[in-house]
């Protein structure tokens, strides 16, 4: 996928990422060239200051693809739901 077919994904934000971005979720059409989680973060940061601020400290942003923890280098592949959140603090 990815390389030759743009596809629409739902992006979800939790905790202070949700507060900084100002929304719980949004549907976006991934442009060509956005292959990995890190690519997506870079692309989002071009969309406005709230994204720049939300992702300003990448070391405290975690991601999940279709509800599975992944690293920033993970390929988005055919994922339909991409979530960004801080390190978890439950328990």
């Amino acid at each position, binding site marked *: 996928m990815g390389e030759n077919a743009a596809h629409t994904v739902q992006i979800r934000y939790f*905790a202070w990422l949700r507060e900084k971005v100002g929304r719980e979720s949004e549907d976006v059409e991934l442009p060509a060239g956005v292959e990995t989680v890190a690519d997506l973060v870079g692309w989002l940061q071009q969309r406005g200051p709230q994204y720049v601020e939300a992702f300003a400290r990448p070391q405290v942003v975690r991601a*999940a693809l279709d*509800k*599975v923890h992944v690293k920033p280098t993970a390929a988005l592949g055919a994922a339909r739901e991409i979530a960004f*959140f*801080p390190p*978890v*603090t*439950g*328990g």
Partner: protein
Amino acid sequence: MSVRVQREDFDVSAETAKLIADDADIGAIVTFTGRVRGKDDGRQIAALTLEHYPGMTEVEMAAIEAEARSRWPLQASLVVHRVGELKAGDNIVLVIAASVHRQAAFEAAGFLMDYLKTRAPFWKKETTASGDSAWVESRDADEDAAKRWR
């Protein structure tokens, strides 16, 4: 052998009784209860809001429990995690591990908590007595605790 996310409180004795029923092989039951503390780093905590990622939470909790059951011979296990608005002294999380002997029950309960703390998508926001609120930061100690099981 189950995981739950809920707003309501839980009762340790009632959950234990339901879980072990009449399993006569169980000789050891370890429970862990996590509560909202009234103080954190000297700040007076009035309330705690627990947010989670519905769907992913249950999947992660079930995976953590399955991992515990593959590592230790457990007769029964349970993880209950509350979400929503909590106040100081309220219960947050309950873990129960039951086995024939105590070592497996202790280790599995410790493992469940360590993994829950570092993998299950829950986030805490504290509100102090003066009305300020802030997201709780993750503790390096929790990452270190989880690493010892690798």
